[in-house]
């Protein structure tokens, strides 16, 4: 079990939190996703990819916390294929200080699950010792919404998921996180180190400016492998098939409420 004890001094006075931000390379949200003919997955070859939108929000939050002097250093991490480097360069261009790429060989990429990613991140946390890990609440390709929660459990750290606001707590010794839940907003205080996952309304990510894009090339980007981290990527699930959702059938227009009730009765939907 990994235990990290932080000096509980006033957060504003300390040299700031060290933040680790997770970024995943996913198919771009604007692309029309197509299922492969053999139904084993979706077409990714030659398709536009970009940073998961919730991860962009996470990166933006880390950079803002640096600008507010709440954070001292922000490190981005991505678990993925060689092209994940481009995703990390985007994070660096937005203001992250350095990046870590855990490279997954192509053969194992399709079978990678949140359980593996969270184990890899937990191992990195052991050496990097961040005070705060911010992840996107879910990736738009698998919609799992698991990695943040699993990571917190593995590290035995508190978690604050679906964050729409992150600020210092009243006594500045903890983080006050506002969460978006089904019933509305829930505000909780979490002690650091902690895992927070970002939701849509946390912030609006900035454009990387062109000068920062050019500078990002010079920022450090370290590479690691799952073997080096000692994590087993054995898949625990098997994808049987991937199919298109059923084609939406045309509806019918009715002229009056009576017609509507009649039709509903016909279909046996009301008695």
């Amino acid at each position, binding site marked *: 079990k990994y235990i990290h004890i932080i000096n509980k001094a006033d957060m504003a006075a300390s040299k700031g939190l060290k933040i680790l931000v997770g970024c995943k390379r996913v198919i771009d949200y604007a692309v029309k996703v197509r299922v492969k003919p053999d139904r084993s997955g979706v077409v990714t070859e030659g398709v536009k990819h970009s940073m998961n939108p919730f991860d962009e929000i996470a990166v933006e939050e880390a950079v803002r916390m640096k600008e507010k002097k709440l954070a001292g250093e922000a490190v981005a991490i991505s678990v993925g294929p060689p092209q994940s480097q*481009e995703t990390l*360069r985007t994070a660096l*261009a937005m203001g992250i200080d350095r990046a870590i790429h855990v490279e997954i060989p192509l053969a194992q990429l399709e079978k990678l699950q949140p359980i593996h990613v969270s184990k890899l991140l937990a191992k990195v946390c052991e050496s990097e010792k961040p005070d705060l890990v911010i992840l996107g609440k879910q990736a738009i390709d698998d919609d799992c919404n698991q990695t943040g929660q699993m990571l917190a459990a593995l590290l035995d750290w508190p978690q604050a998921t679906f964050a729409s606001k992150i600020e210092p707590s009243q006594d500045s010794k903890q983080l006050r996180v506002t969460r978006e839940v089904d019933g509305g907003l829930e505000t909780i205080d979490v002690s650091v180190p902690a895992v927070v996952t970002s939701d849509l309304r946390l912030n609006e990510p900035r*454009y*990387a*400016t*062109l*000068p*920062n*894009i*050019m500078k990002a*090339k010079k920022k450090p980007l370290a590479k690691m492998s799952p073997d080096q981290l000692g994590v087993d990527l054995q898949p625990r699930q098997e994808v049987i098939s991937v199919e298109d959702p059923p084609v939406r059938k045309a509806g019918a227009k009715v002229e009056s409420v009576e017609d509507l009730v009649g039709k509903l009765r016909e279909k046996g939907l009301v008695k």
Partner: protein
Amino acid sequence: MLNGILKTVQLVGSASRARLCSAPTELVGGISFKLSEEQQSLQELARKFTADEIVPVAAQYDVSGEYPWPVIRKAHSLGLMNLSLPKWLGGLELGVFDGCLATEEFSFGCSGIQTAILGNGLGASPLLMFGTKEQQKEYLGRLIEEPLMCAYAVTEPGAGSDVAGIKTTAVRKGDDWVINGQKMWITNGGVANWYFVLARSDPDPKTPAGKAFTGFIINRDTPGVNPGRKEDNLGQRASDTRGITFEDVVVPAKNVLGTPGMGFKIAMGAFDKTRAPVGAGAVGIAKRALHEATQYAMQRKTMGVPIAQHQAVAFLLADMAIGLETARLAVWRAAYEADCGRRNTYYASVAKAFASDVANKSASDAVQVFGGNGYNKEYPVEKLMRDAKIFQIYEGTSQIQRLIISRELLAAAMSVKS
């Protein structure tokens, strides 16, 4: 390591024997059409900016004719303006090619706004090529610090293609010069902070053009500088075009570019750097025309099927694609020659002439694909037709370009023993 060696090969220009298409740089022999990572990032940023900041407001600026200051300020804050300014001034010192990448993207959104954003390139060019360090620091430095505009003022009501026929005078008065005259159709004329102005400094009509003109840098707030009203033009209506009157404008000697008499060479030298980007602007229109026409053709139905399935329409799209691909490559070649440090006049004229024709035909064909709807302001393509026309006129008319191309090719032919 292989990447490093390939980069060296590319730079040195020596041909490699092996086919290296599979390598990251995709070199085939000595040639590659692959953009570098930095170029891809620039293109992506420009594309995103265009989609978010230009496309949603283009129609509104086209109607109102207001200068797109909010868009300019945003572009400036992202470092998307003044791309070629040197690093020692705080610029990114990007090449002509990189400028073309950004220009094509902005132009896809709105070529009027694109002209406003990148119009600084033309005004700055003479200073970049012939200015002293003090002049560059003073006038180009300003452009980097704040979103200020500049303008290139050569054309007059009586002289456009005939640059040697301009009548604005520059008369020496002690250490100063006094400028009198009228300029016309000056892009950014009403919003510029300073102008590059070409004036006749030698009144003797027998003096050859190469010695009779002088280039000046003139601050907008100099007494006697009077921009006229904003002209109401057919297209690129977001761009600010005006006549400017110079009435006894006193300019200090330190604002002379190069030396007195050098003006013609300076004014013409600027075009070698700016013709390729103007071509890129035309390519942006062609790309937008093809995009809009394709989307429409897939939706609109006639005789029971989307009109894209009728060959007459599909062939219109194919011809637009032919024009787009070839115009872009011509622009890339012209930009590449400039960045290699060579005089690119021939290629720049070919690119500008061809791309402007392609833009006009594509825009007109896009209206055709849209049919009756295309003729109407509710649809985006009539604007493309109006915006495209000026590309055959400014930066050297299509006729002047053909003059330049024919002169260049005949000079080359005459230098070879038959």
